[in-house]
Structure formats: C-alpha cells, structure tokens
C-alpha cells in the first residue's frame, strides 16, 4: 500500500482501472439510491433476505447453462430474489409467523440451498466454475469487458428509473394511504420498488457479494438520514457515500487482487455511517447530548431567576443580594448545579456576585419577572379555558413556561385581557 501504487491507481492511466472504478462506483451508488426507499419503508432487512436469496439463482443458472454468462446468471439471481420476496409476503400474510422470523427463515433457507448447489458445483469438477464463489464476497476486479457493460447498464437503468418515479416512490414510502386516496397505483409502485430492490441486489453482487450486499442498501441510507430531512438531499448524500465506498473497493481490488472487495466496501461505508451516527450535526448522538444538556442548563437558569424573583416579591426588595442559604430555603437545588448556574448567570450579566451573595442586575430582574409572569399566565389560562382545578395547574406551567415564545406570550395576554391575578391570587407582574 505504498504511495507509488496509490498514485498509479488514482492517475487512472490504466483503462482496466478506469473500468473497474466506473463499475464499482455505479453499482454501489445505484444500490444506495434504491436503498433509500427500502430504508424509509422500514424494510431494510428484507434487502438482506433478497441478497442471500440470489445465491441459489446464480448456481441454478450456472448448472442449467453450464457457463458464466453474466446475463444468464443475472436472470437466475433475479428470479430467486423475486421468489424469496413472494414467499416472504406469503408466509407473513398466511401464517402466524412474525415478519422478522419469516425474514430469517427465508434468508437462511434460500442461502442454504444456494450453498448446497454451490458445493455441488465445486465438487462436480466443472472447469468453468472457478470464480463462481467470488459472488459470495465480491470481486470488483472482475468488472471488466462485457461484465462491466452489463452491470453498469443495469445500474444506470436503476438510477434513471428512480429519478423518473422519485415523487411516487417518496409518497408511498411515507404515506401509502394518502397515495391511494389521490389515486396513485400503490400496488404497482410497490412492485416497482420490489423489482428495483432485487435488481440493485443482483447488480451489487459482483462488487460486494451476496453476503454483505444488504449493507450497501441499508447503511448509506441510514447514514444519510442523519444529515438532512429532505429525501432528495438524502438520496444524493447516500449516493455519494456509496460511490466513495465503491471507489475504495476498487482500490483494494487493485492493490490486493486476492482480497474479497465486499467486506472492504462495507467497512468503509460502515465507518462513514458510524461517524454520522455520532457526529452529525443536530441528529448525531453527541450533538443530541449537547442539545439536551444545553436545554437542561437553560431550564435550570430560568428556574433560578424565577426563585430569586419570588424571594424579592416576599420582602419587596427585588435587588437585594441573597445568600446561597436563602436561595436553598426558597427551593432545593443540588449544590453544584446551583453554583454552576449562578456562575453562568453572572457571566451572562443577569446577576452580580459580592461576598458570597447574589443579586439581580436590571436585565436579570426583568427576565425573572417574565418567567414568573409566564408561569402565572399559563396557570390562569389552564383554569379559565381548560377548566382545570387551580391546585392542578402548577406542574404543567412549570414545564411549559420554558418554551413559551414572545408571540404566544402576547396572545395569552390578549386572550386573558392582561389579568392582575393568577388562580392562586398571586399578582401577575408586567
């Protein structure tokens, strides 16, 4: 894996390299694009079943034809792939077996038959059979000449079909009831998606192999989901991720011809996916955690300002400095949480700190007042409009006060016509 081979590969001077790269990239990206819709329909594992089920088809086609003509093998693979989906549907609808059991059953039985046939072929000593087992784990390097044309032809067809029916596929993925009601042929589109899935699996087997083919359908889609909400963008992102993994697969095939390419492609796409799961902005695990923490902190800060305002209300000295003890007497907070929050509020300019006591600044007082106002307005709203007993409204107000926007605030004030008192006869500060 030295720099020289790296340069040779990425200079794309060898026509063989170009053809393998084009083939692998087309296969993986078109599978990723189809995978988006199986993912959205929550049928990711069905793709896995189909992927395993094409093996007996390939073997049967070989036994019947006696050669490795890719067209015949593809047809065989396509037939058993389809057959597996039909039996899956039939078993789930006509027996009490659950879908995941049916998937595991269909997957393993079809694959078992495939293995039996494959070993039968291998032991039969047919000279033409060598290389048939490269369909198990994939061999991108075999994507040259006629094979390249056929496999990339199918890939391009897949891409074109998806772009042509994009809107329909999107609709049935999210809301097939609505699709039916607006008069779309839902059954036909479902069949189309099934056909596309089987085709995607069938083309992918050359580069990735049947065992890990499902990953190329599922993983790019799952990873892309973490970067965007739009299905269109998701499709593009998944295609790019798929293409990148295909490129790596081709490279591995180039530097280590004996190495199966499928696992490498899957490792690359999985690494991208794991990175997305953890570090994607907004939806990733890390940013989710940070968001949650930030929300907790701002709730804590707002509660603290509210309590300081309460203390000032009682002795009519809103700007007097309060000791930790006085705050804790008003409401219990864990000590370190309280100290951190006080420090934050000081740096944000809501509080001042002197001799271990904390006092409102002007802005701090205003914000504390607003929180108390929101709390009491909401309590009043609940008891006036929803007829909830005054002793039941506090808990709800305690949570909602942190999310009320200025717009809702203005509406509440208007609807209740700037009330003076909340249901507990505390005055509402403006």
């Amino acid at each position, binding site marked *: 894996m030295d720099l020289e081979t790296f340069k040779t590969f990425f200079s794309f001077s060898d026509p063989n390299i170009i053809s393998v790269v084009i083939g692998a990239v087309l296969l993986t990206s078109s599978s990723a694009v189809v995978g988006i819709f199986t993912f959205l329909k929550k049928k990711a594992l069905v793709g896995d079943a189909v992927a395993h089920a094409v093996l007996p088809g390939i073997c049967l086609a070989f036994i019947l034809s006696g050669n490795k003509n890719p067209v015949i093998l593809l047809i065989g693979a396509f037939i058993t792939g389809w057959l597996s989906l039909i039996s899956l549907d039939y078993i789930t609808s006509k027996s009490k*077996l659950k879908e995941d059991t049916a998937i595991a059953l269909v997957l393993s039985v079809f694959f*078992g038959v495939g293995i039996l046939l494959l070993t039968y072929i291998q032991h039969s000593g047919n000279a033409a059979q060598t290389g048939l087992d490269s369909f198990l784990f994939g061999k991108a390097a075999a994507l040259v000449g006629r094979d390249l044309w056929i496999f990339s032809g199918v890939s391009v067809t897949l891409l074109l079909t998806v772009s042509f029916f994009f809107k329909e596929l999107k609709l049935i993925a999210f809301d097939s009831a609505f699709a039916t009601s607006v008069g779309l042929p839902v059954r036909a589109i479902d069949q189309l998606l099934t056909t596309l899935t089987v085709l995607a699996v069938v083309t992918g087997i050359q580069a990735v192999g049947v065992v890990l083919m499902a*990953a190329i359908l599922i993983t790019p889609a799952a990873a892309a989901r973490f970067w965007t909400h739009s299905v269109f963008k998701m499709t593009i992102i998944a295609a790019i991720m798929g293409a990148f993994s295909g490129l790596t697969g081709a490279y591995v095939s180039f530097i280590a011809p004996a190495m199966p390419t499928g696992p490498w492609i899957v490792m690359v796409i999985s690494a991208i996916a794991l990175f997305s799961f953890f570090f994607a902005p907004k939806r990733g695990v890390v940013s989710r955690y940070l968001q949650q923490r930030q929300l907790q902190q701002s709730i804590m800060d707002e509660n603290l300002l509210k309590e300081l305002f309460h203390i000032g209300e009682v002795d009519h000295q809103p700007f007097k400095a309060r000791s930790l003890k006085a705050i804790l007497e008003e409401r219990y907070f864990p000590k370190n949480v309280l100290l951190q929050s006080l420090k934050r509020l000081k740096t944000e300019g809501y509080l001042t700190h002197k001799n271990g006591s904390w006092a409102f600044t002007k802005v701090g007082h205003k914000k504390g007042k607003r929180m108390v106002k929101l709390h009491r307005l909401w309590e009043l709203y609940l008891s006036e409009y929803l007829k909830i007993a005054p002793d039941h409204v506090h808990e709800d107000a305690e949570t909602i006060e942190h999310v009320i926007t200025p717009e809702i605030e203005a509406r509440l004030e208007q609807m209740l016509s700037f009330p003076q008192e909340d249901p507990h006869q505390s005055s509402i500060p403006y």
Partner: protein
Amino acid sequence: MVGDAISHAVLPGIVLAFLLTGSRDSFEMIAGAALLGLFTTFFIQFLNKKAKLQTDAAIGVTFTWLFALGVILISVYAGQIDLDQECVLYGEIAYVPLDVWFNDNGVNMGPRALYVASIILLINLVFVGFGYKQLHITTFDPSYAATIGISLGLWNYLLMGAVSITTVAAFESVGAILIVALLVVPPATAYLFTEKLHHMIGVTVVIALINSVAGYYLAVAINGSIAGAIVTVSGIIFLLVFVFERLKIRAFIRTKDLISQS
C-alpha cells in the same frame, strides 16, 4: 432477527480470540464470541435508543459491519490461521471427525467438536430447564414479568449469551450464516402447528433431528455441503408443514361453510 444479527456479528470475536491466543481452543473462542454477542445486543439497543435509528436499520448496519470486520481479519491473516472465508459461510462438518482430541496419555478420545457440542447442549438444556418459567414469562408478557420482579434486561442478555455460545459451537460445522437456519427454521415449523410452549420445544427437537439425519444423506447423495443440505431439508419440511396447515385451514373453512349452508 437479533439472533440472526448475533450469529453474523460473533465472527470478529471468534477470529480475534483465535489471533490473540493462537489456538483453536474452544474456550477462548466461545468467550470472544459471547463478548461480541453481548456487544452486538448492546450496540443495536444503543443505536436504536440514543441515536434514534429505526430498529431494522440498526440491526442491519451493526451486523454487516461486524461481519465485514471478521471477514477482513480472516483474509488479512489468512496465512496464519486455518480459517477461511468458505468455512465462515458454511463450515465443514465433514472434517469434524478428522479433528480428534488426544488426552494426556495420547489416547484417542474421539472428535473434539463432539465434546464441545455436547457441552453446549448441556449448558442450553440447563439454561432452558432452570430458566423455563422466566423465559416463558419475559417472552409472552414482559410487563407482567416486570411487575413480579423478573429482570427483562438480564434474561434478554442471558438468552442472547446462549445464542452467542451456541453459534460458536456450531460455527466450525455449519458456518455463521447457516446457523441462522438451524436456530430459526425448526421452531418456526413447530410454531405452525403447536399451541403450547413445551409442545413446541419437543416438536422442534424432533424436527431438528430429522433435518440433520436427512440432510446428511442428501449431502452424501449429491456430494455437496452437509450444512447446506441440512438447511435445504429443513426448508422443505417447513414448506410441507406450511402447505399442510393451509390445506387444513381451507378444509376447515369449507366444512364450516357446508354446515352453515345445510
């Protein structure tokens, strides 16, 4: 389906244990696989709960990733270990009698895998025997189990642990993918025509025995993989039972129609 995921995902555990200890001693391999099995269960839960990834995708991503890792380890270290990619896929039960265990006095004690398989069978029997009530309740009525103080998490992890070690024991003989068939097909077949759990277990064992014996003779007859043949037979038996049950239901509906007409 999590069982399926685990059977794929234990592969890197087996290979790593193999590389680290340099032996085919089953204890290390089982420990490695059990660890990976637990990790898989945990990781799927994690993706599902913390990353809010839908279950099917969480399973799919996790096991393909770990399986790929296992295959890469095998092909990178192909020279150093006598595991190969084909063995991973469908094992070779035919070689099992060749791998015999000699005791300290050099006496031939018979095939090693036979001992391993027997021990695992014993462990599983003890596990199901003693945990029958707990497994039964946690499977059928998780909320009731929780109210009477049976830990759902514990029994789930124990069950997945049992799946993991069984997978390893079967690994050399049938490979990582076909083991799924051995785990799923016989109980699914039994489930079609039994009502009670203990009946289902009994029927499952009988079906599994028939599968193995018939599968062996099929493999010998056409000179193919024994594991593949066992799975093929189990598929055929499932199909027969399925069709038979469908016919029975139809006949039942027809007689009911006749009765209501007369």
